């Protein structure tokens, strides 16, 4: 099976920045960085022209400007990106139904069965590139490989606007000298752990006796070894068949660091409302609420609480988040807050409550949802949120997907 598959990995070039350049022609060929919308935010994407000056994702606006004084800073406009992403996916689907959206600007395509219809992998890749360029004015890099791992590696080889194929016969020579960090799935921490074992390249990792790896890394040891040998058996999971989401969560970096618990409670209500609304829209409820707190010094921790009954009401989620908050004493001002609901399961039926007061709360929730559906998000909000300007930095989450519960409505 491994030998037979042909997988494409398509990665849009500087996606957000390119979309902005296309929308505003005066920005074409100029250094552009897309930044979040909050008071303090970071560069989410820099155009290739800006990258030449050393502007990178994650820099603050100030740092970016220092590196490249003539840079154009553009505030994110997520709807543009999600809309463009959906159009790109439609183009992919003209060539194969097996399209796995890996993130807003990346996808895997299994074109094994499309070869007889559309010709060689290179010609399919070329047609996709041409199509995206013609319809949307964007460029992308395409990697072709016998599996997802190698396809992803190939797309990164010739950026931007590249096309590169890794053939099974080239795998061994290629992997041998490759640093382990180049592999998708091996991060800095894992790379450090591997280095402790004297492993720096994929060749070394692939030759490592399995027992040593499993003793050190447990079950993933086997997968690591396979990855280093260029083997990856994971299938391309088409849209709609993704495993069910394990949690629904939202987080936001606050405009300023806050210490006051009553202010924090307001932010938590806002986050709980976002979480609850998404959970209700997709008819799931959860039993565990997790609160994430990041201090001013970036020290981050999470605390969770599990209740006996699954919930998805905004106020119910908020009550539990507030409960968790009341149990902790804050050591520093808070920079980021997050609320998530996990231990999820589909809500086929809803247990009704006995008393008028809690039933009223549920009804209020349902009515608020209806109003917000009809007149737009934020058409009706809780009074206690009025003094706050709660929009966060509006940076889209990497887990965004074009369909299903992971499709977060963005502003």
């Amino acid at each position: 099976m491994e030998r037979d598959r042909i997988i494409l990995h398509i990665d849009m070039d500087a996606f957000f920045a390119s979309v902005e350049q296309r929308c505003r022609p005066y920005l074409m060929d100029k250094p552009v960085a897309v930044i979040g919308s909050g008071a303090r935010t970071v560069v989410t994407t820099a155009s290739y022209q800006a990258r030449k000056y050393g502007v990178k994702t994650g820099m603050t606006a100030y740092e970016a400007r220092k590196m490249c004084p003539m840079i154009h800073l553009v505030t994110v406009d997520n709807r543009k990106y999600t809309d463009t992403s959906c159009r790109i996916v439609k183009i992919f689907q003209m060539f194969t139904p097996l399209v796995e959206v890996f993130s807003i600007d990346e996808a895997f395509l299994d074109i094994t069965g499309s070869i007889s219809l559309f010709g060689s992998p290179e010609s399919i890749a070329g047609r996709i590139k041409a199509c995206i360029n013609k319809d949307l004015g964007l460029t992308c890099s395409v990697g072709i490989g016998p599996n997802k791992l190698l396809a992803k590696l190939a797309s990164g080889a010739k950026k931007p606007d590249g096309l590169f194929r890794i053939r099974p016969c080239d795998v061994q020579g290629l992997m041998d000298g490759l640093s382990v960090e180049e592999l998708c799935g091996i991060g800095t921490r894992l790379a450090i752990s591997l280095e402790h074992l004297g492993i720096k390249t994929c060749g070394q990792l692939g030759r490592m006796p399995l027992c040593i790896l499993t003793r050190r890394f447990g079950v993933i040891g086997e997968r690591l070894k396979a990855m280093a040998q260029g083997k990856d058996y994971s299938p391309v999971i088409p849209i709609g068949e993704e495993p069910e989401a394990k949690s629904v969560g939202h987080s936001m970096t606050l405009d300023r660091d806050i210490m006051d618990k009553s202010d924090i409670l307001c932010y938590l209500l806002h986050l709980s409302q976002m979480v609850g609304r998404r959970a209700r829209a997709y008819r799931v409820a959860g039993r565990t609420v997790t609160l994430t707190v990041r201090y001013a010094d970036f020290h981050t921790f999470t605390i969770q609480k599990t209740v006996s009954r699954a919930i998805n009401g905004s106020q119910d989620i908020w009550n539990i988040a507030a409960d968790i908050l009341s149990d902790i004493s804050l050591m520093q001002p808070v920079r980021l807050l997050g609320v998530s609901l996990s231990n999820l399961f589909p809500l086929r039926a809803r247990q009704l409550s006995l008393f008028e007061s809690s039933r009223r709360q549920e009804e209020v929730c349902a009515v608020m949802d209806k109003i917000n559906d009809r007149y737009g998000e934020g058409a009706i909000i809780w009074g206690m949120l009025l003094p706050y300007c709660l929009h966060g930095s509006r940076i889209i989450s990497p887990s965004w997907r074009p369909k299903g519960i992971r499709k977060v409505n963005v502003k």
Partner: protein
Amino acid sequence: MELKIGRNGFLSEVQKIQNITPIKGTKPILSCFLLETSGDGVYLSATDLNVGIKVYVQAEVSIHGKVCLPAKVVYDILRELPENSSVDLLLEENNRLRFTCMNSLFHVPSVDTEEFPAFPVFETQIMHQIPLAILTDMFYKVNIAVPVVEQKLYGAPAGALFSGDSKGIEMVGTDGLRMAYVCSDKLNLPVNVTKVLPKKLLDELPKILPNIDKGKEKASDAPDKKGMIMVGLTENHIIFSWQNIIVFALLLENKFPDYKQPISVKNDKVVILDRERFRQSVRRVSLLSEKKDWFIHFRLSPGKFVLDSEDVDIGDALDKIEVDYNGEGIDIGFNPRYILDALSVIDDPEVSLEMSDNESLAILRPKDQENVKFIIMPVRL
């Protein structure tokens, strides 16, 4: 301190004490009990600060004194000693208590008695006699709906309402989704009281009170003169006294939800069911209901009562009961746990299930008793 005590009597009282001592907690001293000599016997007391117990056991005391001992250790020792033997207790100079019983010898370190919380002194001593069997039966029935922890979302405390006056006593337990209600005019109190009793008292009191054939006597039965228990109330405590046992509990300060409205509801779709047959059907059908958020369907139509459930992964189940029913049909969903809990504490052979529509409360009660009601909210399908 030196005394001689019968093993059997000592063991059974320590066992009662053990029910109260918390298994784990922040205060290690609470896992101990206090033993104090008094006249021809000893008082044993234990508390978890919310519920406390004091029992009296006869003993031959040669030197008076008091000692604080770990309940679990003493209980385990006594259990292993020969039946009907007697145990000699001697407090040695290094504060260790020596147990001698026939050929066995144990030393148990004691804890400073000063650390042990003092047994509260109750200001009002107005005690009132009520039949024990009826009281414990009420506790049993109400307790099924009382949540282990407070349900803040529904405003339901981890305790049951205890309300009484000269006309009778009523008790209510609820977790916000179901409610158990019992009242009895066979019991009464000389004063008007409305208090919330903690869950722990409801759990433990029936276990502590001995030799009552639990569940056999119902709230409606004539009071049995032999088994009367004394009940006293103060501002913050409720006290029960029975023979050699005193149990007190700190009353909860929570507000209790408005229970009057649900119990006043009358439903028109009434079906009489054989309790055991109904219980079996619910159990069978619930096997294949969804594991996490399980519910089963009840479909009632003239002459027929069908229970069914379905789980996409496991399969489906259906059970039919023939009934004498001529009214309008209804299709309603319930959490089977709530139905089974109620059926487990109903003693009558026949039960009455009363419904109105599929989004309103249903009532399950013993067929011939108006004073016991289990109110259960359906699930919206």
